[in-house]
């Protein structure tokens, strides 16, 4: 029983971090109808920003977070303005291809600037694990989880209560009408890229503190894609639930099935198996809107 509880709790913890990454996808998709396949690379770049601030400039973690957030926001704004705005009105598939190209470019830049070596963050969180009843949480998972939760809560509040947040939701809902309200839809696109890049940077740092960083860190972004699909591409709440479900699923599969198989690795297959099953039953995800094809 304790083993099960342990698996579920650490599943929830990984799930929270997955959710944060998934939200990076959702924010851009909701606003612009584009699936941003460079999300993983934005994570990687953001993580490197923070790492550079901490190692080269010896900045404290909180400052490094701020540096990474600002840097990532700038990258997001730049990408939107230089690459995506000229493509406005083009078919979504062309723009999606461009984001795949962007991901390669980011990887290349990271190779040049930070080399392909594997780096790890200096010790940030207290080493003492956290005890929740019978469940033991390693601190390097628990603190990142709390950061992810805080970021998700902040985003939710922003979308719910700020004027810009409401305008972004309106734009996501009906672009032409939002335009007619006097909302500068192009600025909302820009904001959504900035938000997505910042969210991704945070997620990258969080993942980086757990397992180290390299230009290949972005691969995690694609592994999160099942979470995004599970929750529905256009639902932030869905991303949260999808992340947690996927985290638990992975952990249960890893805990119970892996020991039975000679090769193991069920953990990595389960999300994609679940993805296929869910798409067969609900093609628009658990919380997605049905008419997701609008642009």
């Amino acid at each position, binding site marked *: 029983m304790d083993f099960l509880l342990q698996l579920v709790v650490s599943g929830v913890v990984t799930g929270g971090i997955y959710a944060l990454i998934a939200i990076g996808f959702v924010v851009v998709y909701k606003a612009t109808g584009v699936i941003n396949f460079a999300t993983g690379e934005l994570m990687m770049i953001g993580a490197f920003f923070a790492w550079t601030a901490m190692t080269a400039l010896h900045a404290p973690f909180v400052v490094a977070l701020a540096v990474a957030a600002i840097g990532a926001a700038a990258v997001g704004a730049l990408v939107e303005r230089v690459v995506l705005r000229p493509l406005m009105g083009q078919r979504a598939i062309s723009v999606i291809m461009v984001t795949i190209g962007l991901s390669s470019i980011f990887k290349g830049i990271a190779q040049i600037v930070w080399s392909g070596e594997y780096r790890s963050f200096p010790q940030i969180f207290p080493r003492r694990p956290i005890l929740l009843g019978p469940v033991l949480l390693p601190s390097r998972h628990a603190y990142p989880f709390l950061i992810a939760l805080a970021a998700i809560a902040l985003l939710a509040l922003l979308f719910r209560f700020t004027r810009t947040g409401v305008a972004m939701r*309106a734009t996501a809902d009906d672009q032409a009408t939002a*335009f007619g309200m006097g*909302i500068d839809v192009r600025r909302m696109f820009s904001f959504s890229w900035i938000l997505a890049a910042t969210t991704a940077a945070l997620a990258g740092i969080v993942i980086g503190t757990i397992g180290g960083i390299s230009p290949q860190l972005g691969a995690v972004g694609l592994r999160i894609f099942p979470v995004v699909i599970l929750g529905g591409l256009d639902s932030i709440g869905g991303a949260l639930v999808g992340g947690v479900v996927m985290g638990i699923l992975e952990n249960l599969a890893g805990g119970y099935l892996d020991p039975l198989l000679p090769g193991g690795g069920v953990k990595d297959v389960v999300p994609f198996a679940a993805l296929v099953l869910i798409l067969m039953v609900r093609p628009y995800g658990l919380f997605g809107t049905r008419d997701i094809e609008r642009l």
Partner: protein
Amino acid sequence: MTTPETPPLLAVNNLEVVYHHTVQVLKGLSLSVPEGRIVALLGSNGAGKTTTLKAISGLLPLEDGAVEAGAVLYRGEDLSRLLPHQIARRGVFQVREGRHVFEELDVDENLRCATYARRGRGGVAEDVEKVYAYFPRLAQRRGSLAGHLSGGEQQMLAIGRALVARPDLMLLDEPSLGLSPLLVEEIFGIVRRINVEQGTTILLVEQNAAMALEVASYGYILESGKIVLDGPVERLKQDRDVQEFYLGRRGGQRKSYRDVKHYKRRKRWLS
């Protein structure tokens, strides 16, 4: 009241609109809307009424439509090169056909979106309350998602957004679409009140010609992309063709299909 000599608030001159580079929808349409009035634009399905409004509000490019020739002059400025949000911020606000409320936002949030069209930030709370005074039914539902409102309530919300935007010129597209006669009556009453109490100039597109001619002071009749008839509503109401084909009246007798064909022939002469 404006005298005929003062330039109109809105003047559309020889407007030609083409969709997808091939389909011509407006073929040299001209109309003018004097300040403070309600002007009705009538016509059957596909005549180009909505296209005319979209050409004014700048929404055409979003549907791969383009103004090929002519001009849309608002207070002397050509709108046809501006983006929709810039036009809205100049005081021209469109209430689109089919309501187009933000379904995933609640009523209050929908109203607050329209504040982007305002010049200056003050007075929003008062204007939101004003909307609820015009439409008490919306006040009861201010926290519900707009997608859960009835069709009539959504139309009220769409007009309410326009009130919050405080436009000088409101473009109203088919406010009666899909509503019960009682609601149509109510909505048109409020349209008239907005015109009188807020001094908002209104360009009204309607299929319900009887209702539109009731509130408007001047009317245009649009067929296949051109104005075929215009005049003060009193004169339009007396016009035999208008009575027959827009108001459905003709001295008590039922019309036969031969007359319709006869009219079609005459129409070709007109256009």
